[in-house]
Every structure is written in C-alpha cells, then in structure tokens.
C-alpha cells in the first residue's frame, strides 16, 4: 500500500495519477490522501513527464474534472480505478453506463451538476453600501466543492455589479474586472445585513403561491429543506402550508 497525498484539485490528482499509471500501480494499492497539506509522493514513483503516454477517451476528462468536485474522499480512488480500467481493460468502458464504477462516477457527476445549478439558483444577494459604494453580498451553502465552477456565471451575468459570495467551501469576489477566490468562512456573515427589496420579494412569493394546489413533496424535491435557512422567502413556507390546509378544510365543511 502506498500513500499519495494530493491537493484538493484536479491538476494535482492528474499529475499523481499519471505517475501511478506509469509505475503500473493497481488501484487497490493506493491510499489517496487529501488533507490540505501540499502534495507529497512516494519517491519510487516514476517522474512526471510531458509525454502523452496514455490515450484516454475524450469524455473522461470532463467527467473527472466534475467528479473531483464531489464532496467524498472516495472520489480520488474511484477516478483512478476508472482510469486504470480504461487503460488496461476496456477503452470503451465509459460507454457502459450500467458498469458499477461508471455508474457511481456518473451519479457523482450528476450531483455536482445539480449542486452548481442550485448554486446559480439559490444565491440571494443583499445590496449594501460600503464607503458610498454599492456592493452585493450573499451567503450560500453548497454541498460539494462547486464555488469555482459556479462563480463565473455570476461574473457573466452581473458583471456591472461588485459582488462577494461567501460559503463554507470558499468565497468568490468580483471587483468589476476580476474574479478572485478566498478561503471559506464558517458562519453566515451576511445574516445581520438588511435589504429592503427582500420584503417585496416575500410579498411576491406569497402572492404567486396558489393555496388551492398544495404539493409539498413536489416543492421539497426541488427546494430541499437544507437550503431553506439560506433563502429569505423560506421563512414563509410553514405558515403558507398551514393556511392552505385550513382553506381546504374550510371548503370541505
């Protein structure tokens, strides 16, 4: 068993994986460690070269780049296992979506896509002023390591607004020209700030709700309860449900 210590990013894993593959180390002989310290390799591994020795199908790269964002330690070994099998067993492995490893990787990929999508959907900016300058700030709690993947969307869309998005997994900042990232923060730093527009948003939220069509599960499927605490409008949900149920029982009588 050898221990391989990598940084929490795709490039670091790829470098290590190439060297392991060159040294023909089987997946079950590696213990992948990603604990925030810098990458350290066992010295008996092959040196990394620029030569492209292994041919990997085109669709492996985007899959791997996505799976590394998944928040579970097993992702590194799963990816190396796939890579090893693609090189040694079947170059078409990724097409066999009913294969257990492929399926696990695809499910992780899907979870990351969904997390990015929910990131884009559920960030709620609050407008504040600092030294007379307008800035928009938000707090969000992503499930996976999706800050770097999700932030460019906001820069494209809100390029004319200064903004900062704070999350436990990293923060993103836009100064009208560049997108920069910083370490994650532990608690909701945006909570004490107020933005009067939020009140209009809450009025809108409860007015657009149709109490005659209560479908609680359908809502929870798309708006998972764990996100409620970061969404201002979610504070209304329990009361809206109660009112809708009262309305229904009143009608029945």
């Amino acid at each position, binding site marked *: 068993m050898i221990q391989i210590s990598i940084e929490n990013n795709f490039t670091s894993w790829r470098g290590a994986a190439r060297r392991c593959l060159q040294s023909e180390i089987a997946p079950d002989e590696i213990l992948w460690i990603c604990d925030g310290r810098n990458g350290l390799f066992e010295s008996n591994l092959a040196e990394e070269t620029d030569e492209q020795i292994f041919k990997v199908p085109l669709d492996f790269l985007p899959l791997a780049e996505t799976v590394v964002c998944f928040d579970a330690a097993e992702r590194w070994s799963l990816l190396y296992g796939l890579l090893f099998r693609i090189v040694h067993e*079947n170059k*078409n492995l990724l*097409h*066999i*979506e*009913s294969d*257990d490893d492929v*399926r696990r990787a695809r499910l992780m990929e899907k979870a990351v896509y969904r997390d990015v*999508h929910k990131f884009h*959907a*559920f960030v*709620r*900016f609050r*407008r504040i002023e600092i030294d007379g300058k307008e800035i*928009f700030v*938000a707090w969000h709690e992503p499930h996976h390591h999706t800050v770097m993947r999700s932030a460019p*969307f*906001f820069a*494209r*869309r*809100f*390029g*004319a*607004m200064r903004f900062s998005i704070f999350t436990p997994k990293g923060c993103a900042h836009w100064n009208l020209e560049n997108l920069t990232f910083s370490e994650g923060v532990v608690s909701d730093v945006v909570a004490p700030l*107020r*933005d*009067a*527009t*939020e*009140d*209009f*948003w809450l*009025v*809108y*939220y*409860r*007015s*657009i*709700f*149709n*109490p*005659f*069509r*209560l*479908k*609680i*599960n*359908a*809502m929870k499927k*798309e*708006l998972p309860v764990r996100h409620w605490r970061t*969404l201002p*409008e979610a*504070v*209304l*949900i329990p*009361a*809206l*449900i109660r*009112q809708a149920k009262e309305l229904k029982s009143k009608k029945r009588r």
Partner: protein
Amino acid sequence: MKVLRRSIYVKLHLTVSSCFTLAILFHLRRRVNLKTVMELICKLEILADAAKYDASCASSGSHRKRSKHGIGNTEGIGICHSYTPDGRCISLLKLLLTNVCIWDCAYCINRKSSSVNRARFTPEEVVKLTMDFYKRNYIEGLFLSSGIIQSSDYTMEQLIAVAKKLREEENFGGYIHLKAAPGASPELLLEAGKYADRLSANIEMPVQEDLDKLAPEKTLMTIENTMADVKSGIDAAKDLTKKNGDAPKFARAGQSTQIVVGATESSDTTILHKAESLYRKFDLRRVYYSAFTPIENTNPLLSKLPTPLMREHRLYEADWLIRHYGFTASEITHGAKAENLDLEKDPKLSWALRHRDYFPIDVNRASARQLLRVPGLGARNAARILKIRHYHQIKLEDLAKLRVRMANAKWFVITADYNPNVYQLDAEKLEERLKPKAIQPSLFDSFTNTALSGEL
C-alpha cells in the same frame, strides 16, 4: 429576541391584508415615503396574485450576452430560483400590468364582472421591480401579461413600453416573456418580438363552442391569427440569420399557449388533438395545461368541482409523448375506455396495455423508436441502451442499474438473460397488477389521496 422578531415578521407577512403593517415596518426601518411603499406593496400583491393562473414560468431557449454596462444575460438553460409550496417553480417575476379588463371571460378571475380588487402598475414600477429582483438573483427575468384595457392594440403598446424601457434604458439582458394580446396588430407583435424572448397568446379553450359560451369576445380564429403573426416574425428572423449569418433577435425562445382544463365538458381527447394541431401549425414550444379551480362567485356555466390535478399531470405526460416520444394524439387516445386519460395509469402504460401485440421488445435489438414505446423507459435511458449494447449484452440487472422503472418495464422487454415476467404479457391479470397499490389511508390523511392530488 431574534426569534421573536422573526415570528412577528412572518405573521405580519401573512395577515390577510398585510399591506399596511408591512408598510409601517418599512417606514420604521428606512425613512422612505410610506404612501408610495404601501401602494406598491398592495399593487404587487394584487397583480402577482392575478398572474398566478398562467402556468408558464419557463426561461429556457434564449441566448443573449450581457451588454457592456448592462445587467443580465440568458444562457439557454432557464433557472428556477425558488419554488412555492404548490410545487411550482419561480423563474420569472410574473405580473399583470393591470387586472382591469374589458372582456368578460367566465373562467378568468380578472373578468370584467369579477369582484376582485383592481390595480395598475406604471411601466416604471414594473421596470424597477424587475431590476431590483434580478440584481439580487431572485429571478431570470419578467413575464408580463395584462388584462385588456381599451383595446388589444392599446394593451400591447403598454406591454411593449415596459419591455422597451428594460432593454433600452436599463440595458437589461435577462429573459422577457410578453403576453401577445389576441387580435393585436401584426406591427405591434413584430415590435414586441424585438424585445421579448418569448411571446404567448393563450387559447384557453380547445373548441369554439366553449369560447362562445364562456368568452364571447374571443374567437379561436383571432387567437390563431395572432399565433400565425408571431410565427411569421420568428420565421423571418430565422431566414435572415440563414442568409446573413445574423439578424435582429426575435422571440428566440419561441411561443407558447395555455389551455384551461376541466372548466367545460371538453375531453382530454379534444384537448390533445387541439394541442397537436397547434404544435404543427405554429411550431409552438409548449402548450400549458391549467386545471380549473372554481373560486368564489364563479360563473354558473362552469364546472362546480375542481379538476383533479392528476388530470392536468396526465395531459402533460401525453403532451410529452407527442413532443419527444413519437406518439400522435390519436394513438394516445384511440381505443381508450373513456374520452379522458386514465388517472391511474400514465398514458404510455395505457397505450402499451392496449397494444400488447407490439411487445415484447428485445432491448438488445430494438430501434430507438421501439425502445421509446416501452413503459417505464425514458428517452435518456433509451439513448444509453443504444450505446451500451455495442459493447455489452443488456440484462435485466443492467436495466435496473440504469434506474429504468422495472415495475412497469419488466413485462414488456426481452433481455439477454431469462426474464420470466414477459410470459405474463398476454395475461388478463396484467392490467390489475399494474394498478397503483391502494394506499392505506392514515387517520390524518384520509381525504388526500396522493395519486389524485398529483403529488408525485
């Protein structure tokens, strides 16, 4: 203390006419003009409430880059920023410019003779709300509709004014869906299409007889002419793009419409055939179906009972089969026991049970078209199966791993291994076995049958 404040806040937000209390809250918090805020909140309450009967909230299918100093873009994929407890997505700020209407369509809450509170936004108010919401990432854009005031043309002009302001004064690059007032002049529709990503004229009723009874001012012909005008605008822009490589944008996300279900006797068969012909004639992107709910002082001509949400759900499923699975409306409805879709079974399963001679389907040999007909097997899995079988014989467990809905699919397929279920294909009992299991009603849940409420 914080918790207490929060609960007071929620209460204030939920009292029936909370306009006033909320406005005071605002006033205390920030020294803004109380009257203005109060008015705006009341308008928002009335005009969002009035807009919620339009089911569409889609914001996909349009691409627009943000202009240099502007705010907003569209990237093809719409985003649902929130969901209300009715399970519906909030993607757009959905508003009526006004709920005053000169028409008296019986099924509509905003009809002339209705006793609802009336209000009217100024274009500036809608523009400010849209920009304020958009900048906070609450929405993808605006869906603006309106009651008919003065005339179709006048109404259309008002809607256009808002969209124009957003695009030209605010450099807004987000999504705009405008209602096309039936009968508005072609020139106005062409102008609307310049600013809007989507236009929609609602047909509401599937046949003219229903309209004659319930909406005497409306004719199918007028509505369809409006759709035709929009279509020709879209086609012209497409042709220009083909010729010159580029053209001014015109309703990039196409047009849609909505049909109210269950207000009249019109059956699902009638509705689906109408929808299919609209898709063919006008290249609609979507037909939305809206289950009718009778509300206070509903017109006596209309159904007294609320339409089961499951009926609406089945129509969406059938609609999906028509658009993505190669079914025709007559295939879905022909030979069925009733004029309406089966509430207990999805339309594909119902079709398969009526056409057992079409099965079993060998998943290792069948064409894409055949795979798409298997109950429980969706389009994405059909595509996966076509890929996998180049390299690997497909067995039952492969289907299960792909999360094909086996309870439905297993009776209809042949796999590389032994599938005993397929011998039951012709059994009379199969239909019984495929019925949803009766749900044990709980004490607290005795009236709500999940299957019929459409909560899936």
